[in-house]
C-alpha cells in the first residue's frame, strides 16, 4: 500500500525533481523547457526486494511562458541496492504542450547557417543574465541535463542544472546539430557543484539525444 508523503517533505521533493528532469528530457526542445510549478500529491510505497516507488501528481510550467501549465502524474521507482541502475520513471501528461515547431525550426536554420561554429560560456552569467539569442542553447542544455540527472539520481540526490560553463558546436555533415557542453550540476543534498561533459544531438523532428556524457573531476580553484 502506498502511504501519503507530506508535500513539504524532502524525499517527495527529490522524486518530483527527478520526474521533472526526466519529463523535460523526453518532451523538451530548444523552444520548450519544463519546470516544476508545484507538487500536488505524493505517495510512497516500499516494495520489498525491489525499491521505493513514488506516485506523484505534478503541475509543470513552460519556462518561456509561465502562464502555460500542464498537469502530470508520474511514477518514480528507485531501485534498491544497485546504484548503477537509473530510476524507472513513467509519466502521463494531462493535456497538450504548446507546439514549438516554428521556434525550433528558426533556431535550427540559424545554427545550420552559421559560418563559424557557435562557442559560448557562462550561461547564465554571474548576474543571472542569458542573452536572448542564447536562450535556445540554454534550454537545450536544460533538456539534455534532464537525461544526465535521470541517469545519475538516487533517493539521496536532487540535481539541478546550475550553469553552462562552456558550449561548442560541432559541425556535422548530416542533418543533426551537435553541441559539446561542459555543464555544472548542483546537488541540493550534498551541496556539491559537479562538472559534467555531455555531447548533445538535436533535430527538430528527432528530439534531443545525449550520445556521450561523463562526470568531470571537481575543479579545486584555491
Amino acid at each position: 500500500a502506498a502511504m501519503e508523503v507530506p508535500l513539504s517533505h524532502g524525499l517527495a521533493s527529490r522524486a518530483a525533481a527527478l520526474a521533472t528532469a526526466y519529463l523535460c528530457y523526453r518532451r523538451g526542445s530548444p523552444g520548450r523547457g519544463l519546470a516544476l510549478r508545484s507538487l500536488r500529491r505524493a505517495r510512497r510505497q516500499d516494495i520489498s526486494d525491489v525499491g521505493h516507488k513514488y506516485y506523484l501528481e505534478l503541475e509543470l510550467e513552460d519556462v518561456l511562458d509561465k502562464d502555460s501549465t500542464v498537469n502530470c502524474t508520474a511514477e518514480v521507482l528507485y531501485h534498491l541496492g544497485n546504484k548503477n541502475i537509473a530510476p524507472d520513471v513513467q509519466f502521463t501528461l494531462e493535456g497538450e504542450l504548446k507546439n514549438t515547431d516554428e521556434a525550433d525550426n528558426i533556431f535550427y536554420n540559424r545554427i545550420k547557417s552559421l559560418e563559424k561554429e557557435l562557442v559560448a560560456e557562462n550561461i547564465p552569467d554571474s548576474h543571472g543574465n542569458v542573452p536572448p539569442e542564447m536562450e535556445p542553447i540554454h534550454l537545450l542544455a536544460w533538456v539534455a541535463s534532464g537525461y544526465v540527472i535521470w541517469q545519475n539520481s538516487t533517493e539521496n540526490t536532487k540535481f539541478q542544472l546550475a550553469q553552462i560553463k562552456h558550449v561548442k558546436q560541432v559541425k556535422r555533415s548530416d542533418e543533426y546539430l551537435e553541441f559539446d557542453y561542459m555543464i555544472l550540476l548542483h546537488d541540493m543534498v550534498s551541496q556539491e557543484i559537479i562538472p559534467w561533459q555531455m555531447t548533445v544531438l538535436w533535430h527538430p523532428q528527432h528530439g534531443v539525444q545525449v550520445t556521450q556524457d561523463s562526470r568531470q573531476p571537481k575543479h579545486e580553484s584555491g
Partner: protein
Amino acid sequence: MKILLVFAALVAAAGSEQLFMGDQVLRITARDEEQIALLRVLGEQAELQVDFWRDPTSPGHPSDLRVPFPSLQAVKIFLESHSISYSIMIEDVQELLDEEKKNMTKSRRTERSTSTFDFASYHTIEEIYDWMDVLVDDHPNLISKIQIGQSYENRPLYVLKFSTGGSNRPAIWLDTGIHSREWITQATGVWTANKIAEEYGQDPSVTAILDSMDIFFEIITNPDGFVFTHSSNRLWRKTRSINAGSDCIGVDPNRNWDAGFGGSGSSSDPCSETYRGPYAHSESEVKAIVDFIHSHGNVKSVISIHSYSQMLLFPYGYKRAPAAHHQELNELAKKAVGDLAAMYGTKYTYGSVADTIYLADGTTIDWTYDNGVKYSFTFELRDTGRYGFLLPSTQIIPTATETWPALLDIMVHVLENPY
C-alpha cells in the same frame, strides 16, 4: 585595505603614463617554510623587478606579488617548477589603474546618497561597505555600524545596529550571505536594511518593533567567500580558511556551529561543500556571531537567510525529533509564507530543516535555538532551481519585496510574545 593604498600611490606615480601595461599581480600561497624561503629569493632577483604587495610571512597565508610583464614567464616557470600554487589576482595592472581612475573621477561627480544606490543590481563588497556608511550617515539617530570580528583573510565583519535607544534591549538578529554564492541574499539584505530605515516612523509595525527592540543585521556574513565569488569562482559556498594537510580550502559556516556538531548531516572531508571544520566554531566568521550573541545576552530571534529553494525553516536540522516549540514555530512559518505568497504568488514550503530538506548538523539556527533563542528561522529565498544561485538581478527587488512581509510577521510575533 592595503591594496587600495598601494593603488593610490601607483595612480599618483603613474599619472597618465602606461607604466604597468601587461604587469600582473599573482596571489601566491606557500605551503611550507621551504617555499617561503624560495619566494624571498625570488623577490631578491634584481633583474626580475618583482615587488611584493603583501609579503610572504608564513605558510598558508597568501602573499601578493606584482610581476612586470617582461618577467612574467620566468616567474611563472619558477613557481610551477617548485609546485608553488598561485592564481592571477590582477590580469593587467595598467588596465585596472585606467579603470580605477575612470571610476574615481566618475564617483567624485556623483552625489553620494542612498537614493542613487542601485538596489536592482548585484554589487561588490566595496560597493556594499560604502553604501553601509552612507546609510549610517543618512540615519544617524537610528543606525550605527559595529564590527564584531574579522574574517579569516582579515576582512572586517560589519553589523548594522538599528536602535532608538534604551540599554541592551531585546534584539532580533538577521544575517545574509553566510554562503557566499547565494547572491540574492546579500542583495535582499541591502534592500531590507534600507527598507527598515525608511519605514521607521512610517509603518506602525516597524515603528513599534524599533521602539522597544533593537535589530542587528549582518549583510556580508562571509566576506572572504563573497570576494572569491566575484574574483574567481561564482559558485563558492564556504569560508576561505586553509585546511591543514589538505589542498582544499574552506569550511561550511552552516555546519560549524556547536549543535549536534560532527554528525551525519555534515562532512569530515575538507574538500566537501559541507565540511564541518576541525572543531565547532573554528571559523572566525562563526565565532564572531557566537561571541556577540553570548555577550549580548538578550537576543530573542535569529533569522538566517539563504538561497535557494523557497522554504521557511526552523529547528531542528541535526535530529528528526521535533523542537519543543514546533507547533508555535510551524504556525508562525505558515502565516509568514502565506503573506509572502500574497505578493506575487511565490510558493514556499515550510517545516523543520530535518523534515523539509535533510539532516544537517552544526547549523546556525539549531545552535541559537539550543542557546535560548526561541524564534530561530532560516529562509531559503528564490528560486526552485531554474536559475538557482544565478538568479537574474531583475528578480532582486521582487524577491526582497515579497520576503519583507514574511520577515515582518516574524518580527511582530517576537515583539508581541516576549519571553
